């Protein structure tokens, strides 16, 4: 269709006076009716009302309109709705454009109605010029593949996997460590209720482990993800455990393993207990680990590291479950949606050197204290110093790494509360004096302020101030043999030296080590390093990549309550997406005119989305419409004008510029 043939209708909305009190809608209608191609121009009190839309549809059908301009509020409000309305009336929806005469004329220029009206005319003529040059577009859809991959089996991933499984979706839950449970499984108690963490987590671990709709892949890592319309193909590497499913969990291998023994040169710290004790090379991370399968850590095993000189685990195994020949397996999963729940890791406490972590034996970080307090930890729940004696006094330093422009500028949101929890538990179990060194007390959750008040009434000391350093250099007899926290009490306006037996560093939450995963899923990070959500406020569970959802601390620091809530919301979003059956592909993406393309590769150089490639056969650029976001960077660097973004082609944009140009010279 040539532009002269297209019949265009212009619909001017009064917006109940918001527009018509400023813009002379009669003059605007008269002007619009005289524009080339315009066969109908009308105005109405509320175009967005049912009546207004009926009028739009009726006119489209009666006049046989092939293009529409609605002069109303910003396209961000009702463009989609008007396009849908036009589509129902039989018109191609992509031939409808909005002239934004409310936000751009009536509102900012309401003191100058004459100028507002003149500008409205230009905006309408620019959109008419554009509509005359638009091409009808087909919306393509792609069926959404069944199934969802949940990456990370901490509390967020476990909860989401259970819900998605309950909703009837086939779930693959992928966990990189040998057991599910995540950081929550390390906790002793949870604030503010002081519930036993494993008592609430363990049933969920069992539920997901036994769920008929959930496949569990543990000790497995996502290596790559390829997105095609409606489908993600995910490559997962299953690391070899060197122990088969025949394992009966008798623990004889661990007892026999020589690694980490008193005379053994090979020693390995327990990741589970945050390096507080040693573990064997063949091990189960903790007694409630799921699956109950032992794992050999080949990097610390005599069989692998000392030329097969060992193998005692295989000899003592009554089930013949040890298999040193296991190799990494690569699996390919095809799913329609991905839910990222990769959690957090504790900030490296040693980076804040002035607090002496790694230098002084009795300086610990938060997760280590969880393990020391836990009955499944290295001391079976007895809080003791490295020398085995209980501390008489403990200093808890808040905001280590958090709210510090040298490290992490964000608040980690849980540290105040877990610090209070430690204060309570330490006092309860050891009777030690406990000091909290805090900047601000943030107790903003249900029951949290009450918990703070409760702990404050338990003779726990609170010093408002960020400690300068922790030192063992005594300046007074009572400081001998102690760790001294040097701090300014900003409420009292005094410098203090507080001698304690043990120091706890309430470290920040850091994002997990997941850059490779995010890159393969084309996910962005926010400035703090966590996964970027679609919209921080109104859409915190989706991402800019359709079909990829995020939950838990992968998206930002949060407590268990918020993690559960977000995991539920993300599961719901993923379920709705999968249940919709098909996804629409954005038609406003780049397109190549093969006659003009010279295969120079400049478009591929600037593309951030890996969405355009030169086909080696035809030597022409080819756009992957599912990956292209339609930004148009390529259109600027293309030397021949071969690549264009639909509805934003050069002739369309130039026609709009000409229509907006000062009339004295433009005509």
């Amino acid at each position, binding site marked *: 269709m040539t532009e002269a043939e297209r019949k265009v209708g212009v619909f001017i909305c009064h917006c109940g006076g918001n527009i018509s009190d400023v813009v002379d809608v009669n003059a605007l209608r008269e002007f619009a009716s005289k524009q080339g191609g315009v066969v109908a121009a009308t105005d109405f009190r509320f175009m967005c009302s049912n009546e207004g839309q009926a009028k739009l549809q009726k006119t489209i059908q009666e006049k046989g309109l092939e293009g529409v301009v609605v002069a109303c509020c910003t396209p961000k409000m009702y463009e989609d709705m008007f396009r849908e309305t036009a589509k129902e009336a039989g018109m191609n929806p992509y031939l409808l454009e909005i002239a934004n005469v409310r936000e751009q004329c009536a509102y900012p220029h309401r003191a100058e109605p004459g100028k507002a009206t003149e500008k409205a005319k230009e905006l309408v003529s620019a959109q008419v010029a554009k509509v005359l040059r638009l091409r009808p577009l087909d919306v393509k859809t792609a069926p959404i593949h069944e199934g969802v991959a949940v990456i990370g089996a901490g509390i967020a991933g476990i909860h989401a996997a259970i819900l998605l499984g309950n909703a009837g979706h086939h779930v693959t839950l992928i966990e990189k460590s040998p057991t599910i449970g995540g950081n929550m499984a390390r906790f002793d108690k949870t604030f503010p209720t002081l519930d036993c963490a494993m008592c609430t987590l363990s049933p969920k671990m069992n539920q997901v482990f036994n769920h008929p709709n959930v496949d569990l892949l543990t000790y497995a890592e996502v290596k790559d993800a390829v997105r095609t319309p409606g489908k993600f193909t995910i490559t997962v590497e299953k690391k070899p455990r060197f122990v088969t499913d025949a394992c009966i969990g008798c623990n004889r291998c661990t007892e026999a393993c020589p690694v980490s023994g008193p005379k053994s040169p090979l020693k390995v710290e327990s990741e589970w207990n945050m390096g507080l004790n040693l573990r064997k090379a063949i091990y189960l991370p903790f007694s409630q680990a799921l699956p109950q399968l032992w794992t050999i850590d080949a990097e610390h095993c005599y069989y692998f590291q000392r030329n097969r000189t060992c193998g005692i685990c295989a000899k003592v195994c009554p089930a013949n479950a040890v298999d040193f020949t296991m190799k990494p397996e690569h699996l390919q999963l095809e799913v329609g949606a991905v839910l990222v729940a990769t959690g957090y890791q504790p900030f490296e406490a040693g980076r804040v050197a002035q607090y002496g972590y790694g230098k002084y034996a009795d300086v610990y970080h938060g997760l280590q204290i969880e393990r020391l307090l836990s009955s499944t930890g290295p001391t079976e729940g007895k809080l003791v110093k490295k020398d085995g004696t209980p501390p008489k006094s403990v200093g808890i330093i808040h905001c280590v790494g958090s709210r510090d422009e040298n490290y992490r500028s964000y608040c980690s949101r849980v540290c105040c509360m877990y610090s209070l929890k430690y204060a309570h538990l330490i006092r309860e179990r050891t009777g030690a004096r406990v000091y909290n060194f805090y900047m601000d007390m943030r107790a903003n959750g249900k029951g949290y302020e009450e918990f703070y008040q409760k702990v404050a009434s338990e003779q726990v000391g609170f010093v408002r101030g960020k400690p300068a350093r922790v030192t063992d250099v005594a300046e007074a007899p009572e400081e001998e043999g102690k760790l001294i926290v040097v701090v300014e009490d900003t409420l009292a306006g005094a410098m203090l030296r507080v001698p304690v037996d043990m120091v706890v560093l309430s470290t920040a939450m850091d994002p997990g080590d997941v850059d490779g995963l995010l890159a393969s899923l084309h996910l962005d990070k926010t400035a703090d390093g966590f996964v970027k959500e679609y919209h921080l406020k109104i859409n915190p569970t989706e991402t800019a990549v359709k079909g990829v959802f995020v939950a838990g601390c992968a998206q930002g620091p949060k407590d268990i309550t918020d993690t559960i809530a977000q995991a539920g919301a993300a599961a719901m979003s993923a379920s709705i997406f999968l249940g919709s059956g098909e996804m629409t592909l954005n038609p406003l993406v780049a397109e190549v005119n093969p006659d003009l393309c010279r295969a120079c590769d400049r478009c591929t150089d600037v593309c951030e989305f890996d969405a355009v490639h030169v086909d080696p056969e035809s030597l022409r650029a080819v756009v992957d419409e599912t990956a292209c976001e339609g930004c*148009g*960077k390529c259109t600027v660097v293309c030397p021949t004008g071969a690549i264009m973004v639909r509805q934003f082609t050069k002739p369309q944009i130039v026609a709009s510029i000409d229509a907006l140009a000062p009339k004295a010279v433009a005509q």
Partner: protein
Amino acid sequence: MTDEPDILALCCNWCGYNAADQAGAAKIPYPSGVKILRLMCTGMVDPYYILRGFERGFDGVLVVGCHPGSCHYKSGNLQAREQTDRLMGVLRTLGIGPERLRMDAASSSEGPRFAETVTEFSETLKKLGPSPLREVA
């Protein structure tokens, strides 16, 4: 230019255009000579559009995208910055003057900033007088 300069404002869909909407919704007045054209990203701003604007009599051209680091498409705003920087020299050679082209960033919530930017730009252009191309066009 009758009493106020004509400005072509090429705004990205995600930041510049929304900032202009915010300015409007808050009823912050700014000169009516500002004509906004919505593009998906400033990354699609071809130097030709800017030259076309001047050729057609605009006194100034403003490109408004997202702040560096927050481009909806990662780096379109950076490409636009490159393109506009390069064009400055061309505008000087052509006698139009680089001060008639400006690139700015405004996040989608920065309505007041958008209004301030266009008002200040309009004042600057007023002092410069009409574009020299108006006479030849």
